[in-house]
């Protein structure tokens, strides 16, 4: 076990390069257990690279990622067991039903039988998808597919939920509903969430906010305090010089 007391997710001194191009440079932040943290950055800021390192899709010798105190490099299985991930790209098997998709994922976490079914039912219920459990994923609309992916990420009861631009391609209503759902998971179930986005309207004033630009942390704190008397969009543009 390692890391800061009470931190669900801790990233310290993380650096990464694609050949000569520096993608992340000394990135450090910690998210308290039960907090919703928005990782805001323009396209190309390094958000997806950071997610790949946090989910061990690839590794780096520079810096450290700890999930509930488990170091991703030294204890990857314990760390991965505590995170749920919603990837930017859709990862549902469209030919399978919602329930079968969740069952497959549960098995990848070593869960089967009644216990898996119980957890699947609870996760679908939590995301308001219980009525659609037997529908084929291909027949769902974009918002419901995303909800299914979030429900899937909850099946193994993770402590930390990582969401990489989960509202891409959704309409305003679906975006708002999913953002509210994940905020609810943090407030009511004590889940720690890291929500990567480039859309400022998905950040709530009391959220923890980390602004990433060109692979570096430009601001880290409570959104309301970072914004000051500006709008978040203006503040974000000030810090990044980019358009949202």
């Amino acid at each position, binding site marked *: 076990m390692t890391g800061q007391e009470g931190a669900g997710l801790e990233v310290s001194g993380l650096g990464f390069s*694609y050949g000569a*191009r520096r*993608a992340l440079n000394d990135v450090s932040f910690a998210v308290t257990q039960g907090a919703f943290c928005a990782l805001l950055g323009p396209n*190309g*800021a*390094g*958000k*997806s*690279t*950071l*997610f*790949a390192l946090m*989910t*061990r*899709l*690839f*590794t780096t010798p520079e810096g450290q990622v700890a999930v509930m105190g488990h170091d991703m490099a030294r204890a*990857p*299985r*314990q760390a*991965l*067991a505590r*995170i749920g*991930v919603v*990837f*930017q*790209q*859709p*990862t549902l*098997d469209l*030919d*399978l039903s919602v329930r079968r998709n969740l*069952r*497959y*994922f549960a*098995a*990848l*976490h*070593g*869960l*089967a039988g009644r216990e898996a079914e119980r957890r699947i039912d609870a996760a679908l219920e939590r995301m308001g998808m219980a009525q659609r459990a037997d529908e084929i994923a291909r027949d769902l609309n974009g918002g419901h597919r995303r909800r299914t992916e979030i429900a899937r990420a909850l099946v193994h009861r993770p402590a930390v939920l990582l969401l990489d631009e989960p509202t891409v391609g959704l309409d305003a209503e679906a975006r708002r509903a999913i953002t509210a759902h994940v905020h609810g998971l943090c407030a009511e179930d004590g889940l720690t969430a890291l929500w990567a986005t480039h859309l400022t309207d998905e950040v709530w004033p009391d959220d923890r906010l980390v602004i990433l630009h060109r692979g570096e942390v430009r601001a880290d704190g409570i959104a309301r305090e970072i914004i000051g008397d500006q709008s978040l969009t203006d503040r974000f543009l000030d810090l990044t010089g980019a358009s949202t």
Partner: protein
Amino acid sequence: MKPLLIALWAITTREALRFAQQRSRFISALVRPLIWLVVFAAGFRAALGLSIIPPYQTYITYETYIVPGLCGMILLFNGMQSSLSLVYDREMGSMRLLLTSPLPRWWLLLCKILAGTVVSVLQCYAFLGIAAAMGITIPPMGYVYALPALVLGGVMLGALGVALSSLIRQLENFAGVMNFVIFPMFFMSSALYPLWRMAESSALLRDICAVNPFTHTVELIRFALYGQFNGMALLWTMLATMGFMVLALWGYDPGRGLLRRKG
């Protein structure tokens, strides 16, 4: 141990389900060797005389000779097909789901290979059944003895497929696999003609065929179908399986950053 077996079962049934949903894939996987058996063999029968070589104890028809090679062909094409689907899964993102599981990565990759092997072996038996219906029969126990040989061959070629999929950056590059892996591996083997025949035209070519692991997989299957054991073929196939496995694990090592995408 139980979580590992749960994952194995889930990955295997998913692969089988996916295969069952793609009937055209099943039909094309069977049509390919059958065309070779019916059309190619008909033309070659007259041109190619075969002497009595182990494991055969009498003169055999050319069709009988190529049946084990065509089983190998099914395993080879299926191994490459799973490689193609892995590249597709990687481009589509669903590979990430597998690789972020807390189970050991080597086990997850092995599950993928075993799942593909189950599908391949089922196809081999369907092909052997059709060949039997055409009068190309094998001693009844041969069908049983062939099972471990087919499984080992399937695992070897599946591991090769996984290793190759880690080297292919984009789906478009897959055509190269056809030209540089499948065709040389198949044609430079004992699948279609015995090695002594090859030696008559080129000793070098014969030597290349002799070190081709696919030759040994085909021979392992050939001997097993006739209830005989070929130790050398087993050794070569096992060595190649281990080599391809190591290459596959290296290919999917997170330190190598296979899934690197700029974000």
